[in-house]
């Protein structure tokens, strides 16, 4: 599903920390994931060509960024291995979100596992702002339900639309692909360390595209994260 640090435009996380998200917040979250589900799955179907594979990929991988990163490397002519590595590394943030959630979750092992697999920005951010352990659980699953309602209906509409539209390039839909990714990392770029990591990673990629095999520039961009970490070790998250 969507890895949406960008969703702050529709999901104000700070205002109702104690009482949890209101119905309006949940509706906005649902709508955001719906539009993400539609766009991402139109694009995935365009490249994969199979409805069933598109739907299973969206539900099983549960990370739009991973799907888009994999397809981007393949589009550029990169190997399967390079594309898979790119898909994996962009999901590293989910592990970190699961850590934040795990620290506040007082439930059994299976419940923890289920919650861990659904760690995204909006639901974890809302949940960990709650004071009572039972509110953490309640708010987490409420937000998760709103996200999935939007994402799953978005998948259905996206697959349907993808079949109707046909060639995605005709409507400028190929430009939605990088735009969606930019929206997803929007919040990371607002921090100086995130902006530096992106500038170094993106710049290095630009330099390497003409001179290295496809896929290498994207893997090499990991250096940007290391440079940002080394340059700004003290900045708090």
């Amino acid at each position, binding site marked *: 599903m969507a890895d949406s640090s960008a969703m702050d435009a529709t999901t104000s996380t700070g205002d109702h920390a104690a009482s949890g998200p209101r119905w309006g917040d949940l509706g906005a979250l649902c709508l955001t994931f719906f*539009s993400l589900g539609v766009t991402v799955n139109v694009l995935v179907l365009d490249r*994969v060509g199979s409805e069933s594979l598109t739907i299973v990929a969206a539900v099983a991988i549960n990370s739009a960024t991973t799907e888009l990163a994999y397809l981007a490397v393949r589009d550029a002519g990169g190997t399967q291995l390079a594309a898979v590595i790119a898909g994996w590394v962009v999901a590293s943030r989910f592990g970190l979100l699961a850590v934040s959630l795990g620290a506040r979750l007082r439930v059994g092992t299976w419940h923890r596992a289920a919650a861990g697999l659904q760690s995204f920005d909006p639901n974890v951010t809302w949940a960990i702002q709650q004071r009572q352990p039972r509110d953490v659980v309640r708010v987490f699953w409420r937000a998760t339900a709103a996200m999935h309602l939007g994402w799953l209906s978005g998948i259905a509409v996206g697959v349907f639309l993808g079949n109707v539209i046909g060639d995605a390039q005709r409507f400028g839909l190929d430009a939605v692909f990088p*735009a969606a990714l930019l929206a997803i*990392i*929007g919040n990371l770029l607002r921090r100086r360390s995130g902006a530096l*990591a992106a500038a170094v990673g993106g710049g290095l990629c630009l330099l390497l595209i003409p001179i290295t095999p496809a896929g290498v520039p994207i893997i090499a961009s990991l250096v940007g994260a290391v440079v940002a970490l080394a340059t700004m070790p003290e900045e708090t998250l």
Partner: protein
Amino acid sequence: MSWAIVAVLAAGVWVQRLLGMFVGGRVLSRQPALGRLATLIPAAVVMAVIVQLTVASGRSLELDARAVGMAAAGILVWRRAPFVVVAVAAAVATALVRMI
């Protein structure tokens, strides 16, 4: 993307989330830099993917309609526009430039 690739990608994402939930807290309390790295990696790698999708055509660099769409998206993301607005603006700007 094949069924096997979907399984491999899904496994990688699942493992990272479960590791975070069950062992991440202990690891990060000893190695806090790892947590910062995990946050910075997507910024660097996703930006590289964006660059690739916006200006690359195979192994050559090309400035075309996609760059205009991305410029529109960049301004809107900076202004904190909702996702759907960013997506539609990028598509419309790119399609318009191609029509000209």
